[in-house]
């Protein structure tokens, strides 16, 4: 494959501002039935203090991308290619993809520099340990403090995320809290060591709408206070519109389109992105209008289409091209880029060459 990412390399000044850069990441699962290419060439770039939303349907590799960054991909998954460049607090840039997933290096980053919160607050806290002990665990792992200081900081964190009677709740168990409170507790654990990056893997999906809004506000407020970056994974475009600076749209393990939030919502180029945007219910639509839906379903993981993975469902399918050529990543100006043959410029689309092979 052509090393398209080199063209996206930023200038020096921008580089210093860049916290995370994922290049052509591939995470595959080696199952008995075959290889599932859950993440198959993803590029992400996240600046300090910004929010990047990764959007896509279930099974498109959003969560695996997030877990790859922290190197907590469950077995039999493995990172097989790509780079995950992360700028540490000390100014050094490290490649997380090269680290031993059980090693000391990555453990220092987990929870200390990059934290993660998960989709289901119901099950992401231990059922038999108190909330306080789990926050204190994170603090004691990464900060040079005593147990008393850690407990104090844990209470401070619970208070910060809006849990009432924080001192008492330190000794509460997760089953004694509601879903929203548990997610707040998870956020308290995640932010206890002031990470540079928070990865939020659909943190509001399992919550009701009111709680969802509260949690989003909380994450945004905490982000503004601390200046951390947020990698937010969601399938909810409403959430994206609300919080994102940058957006990456994923389909079948690929970033099909990425750009700042305005260009994605107002100048979406990829047929998949456009179809997603059309599928949002609008309050001003007429009563008898059917909601648009993308035709077909996400293919089975063992049955990936050749060429552009979206072509069987695409309305703008170009016969004999989309089903053969893997579209390269195309820069459209600014940070906006797309993988689609509709936008291939003459010199960069090696159509004729690949058709002959």
């Amino acid at each position: 494959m052509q090393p398209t990412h080199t063209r996206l390399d930023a200038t020096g000044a921008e580089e210093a501002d860049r916290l995370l850069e994922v290049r052509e990441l591939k995470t595959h699962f080696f199952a008995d039935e075959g290889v599932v290419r859950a993440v198959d060439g993803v590029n992400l770039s996240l600046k300090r203090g910004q929010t990047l939303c990764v959007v896509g349907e279930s099974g498109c590799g959003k969560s695996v991308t997030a877990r790859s960054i922290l190197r907590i991909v469950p077995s039999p998954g493995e990172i097989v290619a790509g780079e995950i460049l992360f700028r540490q607090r000390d100014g050094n840039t490290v490649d997380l993809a090269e680290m031993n997933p059980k090693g000391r290096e990555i453990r220092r980053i987990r929870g200390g520099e990059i934290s993660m919160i998960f989709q289901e607050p119901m099950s992401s806290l231990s059922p038999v340990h108190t909330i306080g002990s789990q926050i204190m665990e994170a603090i004691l792992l990464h900060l040079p403090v005593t147990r008393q200081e850690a407990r104090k900081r844990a209470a401070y964190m619970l208070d910060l995320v809006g849990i009432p009677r924080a001192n008492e709740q330190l000794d509460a168990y997760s089953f004694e809290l509601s879903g929203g409170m548990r997610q707040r507790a998870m956020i308290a654990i995640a932010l206890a060591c002031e990470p540079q990056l928070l990865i939020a893997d659909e943190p509001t999906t399992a919550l009701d709408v009111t709680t969802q809004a509260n949690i989003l506000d909380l994450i945004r407020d905490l982000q503004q206070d601390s200046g951390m970056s947020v990698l937010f994974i969601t399938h909810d475009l409403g959430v994206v519109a609300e919080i994102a600076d940058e957006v990456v749209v994923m389909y079948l393990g690929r970033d099909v389109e990425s750009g700042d939030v305005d260009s994605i919502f107002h100048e979406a180029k990829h047929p998949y992105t456009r179809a997603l945007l059309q599928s949002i219910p609008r309050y001003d639509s007429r009563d008898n209008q059917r909601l648009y839906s993308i035709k077909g379903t996400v293919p089975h993981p063992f049955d990936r289409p050749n060429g552009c993975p979206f072509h069987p469902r695409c309305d703008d399918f170009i016969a004999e091209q989309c089903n053969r050529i893997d579209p390269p990543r195309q820069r459209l100006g600014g940070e906006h880029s797309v993988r689609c043959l509709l936008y291939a410029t003459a010199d960069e689309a090696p159509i004729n060459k690949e058709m002959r092979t």
Partner: protein
Amino acid sequence: MIWYIARRIVYLIPTLLVVSVIAFLVIQLPPGDFLASLISKAEETIDQAQVDALRERYGLDEPIYVQYWKWISGIITRGDFGDSFEWNRPVSDLIWERLGLTMVISLYTLAFIWVVAIPIGIYSAVKQYTIGDYLVTVVGFIGLAIPNFLLALVLMYIAFRYFGQSVGGLFSPEFIDAPWTLERVLDMLSHIWLPVIILGTSGTAALIRVMRANLLDELSKLYVDAARARGLSELRLLFKYPVRVALNPLVSAVAWVFPALVSGSAITSIVLNLQTTGPLLYRSLQAQDMYLAGSLILLVSILTIIGTLVSDILLAWIDPRIQLQ
């Protein structure tokens, strides 16, 4: 917590009463009685007058509820479990030492099962579908499949043939009837490993499977990933979270280990010539020695109930999710 325990103990009383009635009824269920089986075994015929005299002496003519009342009131007020017909001695003389030895063997076996099975189960779960896991699985199933008494015979042969150890029983001949001294205790400890291994094998095999399954369930839970994402090392993570949660169901298994060891291992105990309650119960049931059999069944039931209580209390203590209401 104290209230919870107190309430549970109060609840024990009616349960025990019902259990004692059932225990008494069970031993009355088979047709005939001790005299009938005595007569059938006797060399010369016993005339009816003699039978009637014996029947009266043992109180076998009275209605069941009178017999039950005599028996249970004796137990409650005087600790008197009645007399064994066959041994011609008070039941309490016969059972206490055997019960003590049974408890010792049971506790040893339980400890053996846990100490061996839990680490192997953890290994097997963490290394799922590796050579090591398959090996443990195969050995485990073999352990489950071999009847204990057969294993007893094989190990006794090996111990005798290759180690020259006097096998069978818990004591060397010179200590069998000796009073309890330090030497006797040491002698017992040097004999106890064989019955413990034999009695513990199938339990160990079963517990490895249970531990492996429990832990596999927990390992895939999100809180494990969340703890890993906090930067915890793999080993500390493993023992602090999933293993800790996976142990909870094992604690409730304590309840059924006791009765199984007391009554279920009768055949093995007979083969090994252990002075435990199993063989005694077996003999007394054959002979329809009703006070002895009834008392043993009652004690096994009491052990079961106490085991349940102990495991419930332990579980309530270690698992905060259990509500004490």
